[in-house]
């Protein structure tokens, strides 16, 4: 296999795509620096409101989490374009191997968990997983993670809920309403409640995990600052003002709370999406209905 030569145009497009990936993040950091008021201590706060749009119905605040999730969307979009740039069947590049591996893994995951009827769901599941993972990982550059805002994750959970209901409706409204009265009729209220608890629990699970991680990190960082002030505060000169204990320890916590927990929650969110959609869909009845329809068509 001969080594592939890149033309100048190919390299230029590559550089442009990489720049488009990094520029939104720099823009986000700039906005964050511009809008953060100077404060001495460490504080726990929700998403900041950057500005408010005056719409006729009611003022629409544009918050930090919203802007950051747009940044993630743009960055991931250009990352995908970069990875799929220069695909070829005979002479694949390094990134093509990465893309093919990821594609195979996603397809395998979806077909293992959802069955063959839902094979075309792989792009959707991969999109949700990527968006969630990168939204949580954006804390590594110091930005506010959109996933620790209930509104963002609630929106995703609502989308999943609509999909679940759509696939439950595939056999008609009567079948859908009847499914609430199973296995016994007097369980109907409980079934209705558990139907609405699905998106709520999904949203709370993801948001609570990320938020609790950031709250614990902030608390540990603040307490280490105070502790080092007590222990090393008596040192002469500027040595007394350096928080020695804050070096290193918060980074270890960050590896668990930001990287591991974020990726795990992304995986779990995608996994639960697949499980809920495929378990809500009455596959046997749908197949029976299709058979009946084709039989009627054959008769007439």
């Amino acid at each position: 296999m001969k080594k592939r030569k890149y033309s100048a145009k190919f390299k230029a497009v590559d550089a442009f795509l990489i720049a488009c990936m990094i520029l939104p993040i720099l823009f986000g950091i700039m906005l964050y620096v511009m809008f953060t008021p100077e404060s001495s201590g460490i504080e726990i706060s929700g998403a900041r409101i950057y500005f408010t749009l005056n719409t006729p119905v009611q003022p629409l605040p544009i918050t930090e989490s919203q802007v950051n999730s747009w940044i993630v969307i743009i960055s991931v979009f250009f990352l995908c374009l970069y990875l799929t740039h220069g695909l070829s069947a005979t002479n694949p590049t390094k990134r093509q191997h990465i893309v093919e591996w990821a594609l195979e893994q996603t397809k395998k995951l979806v077909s293992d968990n959802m069955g063959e009827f839902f094979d075309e769901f792989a792009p959707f599941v991969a999109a949700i997983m990527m968006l969630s993972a990168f939204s949580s990982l954006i804390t590594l550059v110091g930005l506010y993670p959109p996933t620790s805002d209930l509104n963002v994750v609630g929106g995703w959970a609502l989308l999943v809920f609509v999909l679940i209901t759509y696939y439950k409706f595939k056999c008609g409204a009567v079948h859908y309403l009847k499914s609430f009265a199973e296995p016994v009729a007097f369980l109907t209220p409980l079934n209705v409640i558990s139907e609405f608890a699905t998106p709520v629990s999904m949203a709370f699970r993801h948001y609570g995990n990320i938020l609790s991680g950031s709250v614990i990190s902030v608390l540990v960082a603040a307490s280490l600052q105070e502790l080092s002030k007590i222990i090393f505060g008596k040192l002469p000169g500027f040595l007394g003002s350096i928080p020695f204990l804050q070096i290193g320890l918060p980074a270890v916590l960050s590896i668990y709370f930001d990287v591991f927990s974020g990726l795990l929650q992304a995986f779990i969110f995608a996994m639960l999406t697949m499980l809920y959609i495929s378990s809500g869909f009455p596959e046997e009845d749908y197949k029976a209905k299709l058979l009946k329809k084709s039989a009627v068509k054959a008769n007439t």
Partner: protein
Amino acid sequence: MELAIGIILGCCALGAGMAMIAGIGPGIGEGNAVAKACEAIGRQPESRSAVTTTMLMGCAVAETTGLYALVIAILLIFLAPGRLVNILVETMNTLG
């Protein structure tokens, strides 16, 4: 007035602390799940990856109740005191 505000703040903090008692449940449940997963891997080491994924899923689902308690505790610490104090001040103003 100061006494009332103090009682509000103290009770909010107490309530948040009590809400987090719910953390016991998920802790025990997840411990059980991981113990069983370890046993299963010990018995059948070749099924390691499948067991691990299933265990992580189960842990995440078991964690939900703990996270509900966490959300309530966070609301009680960051949101409730300000709101309750506002209500108190308003009622005091209307009463004169």
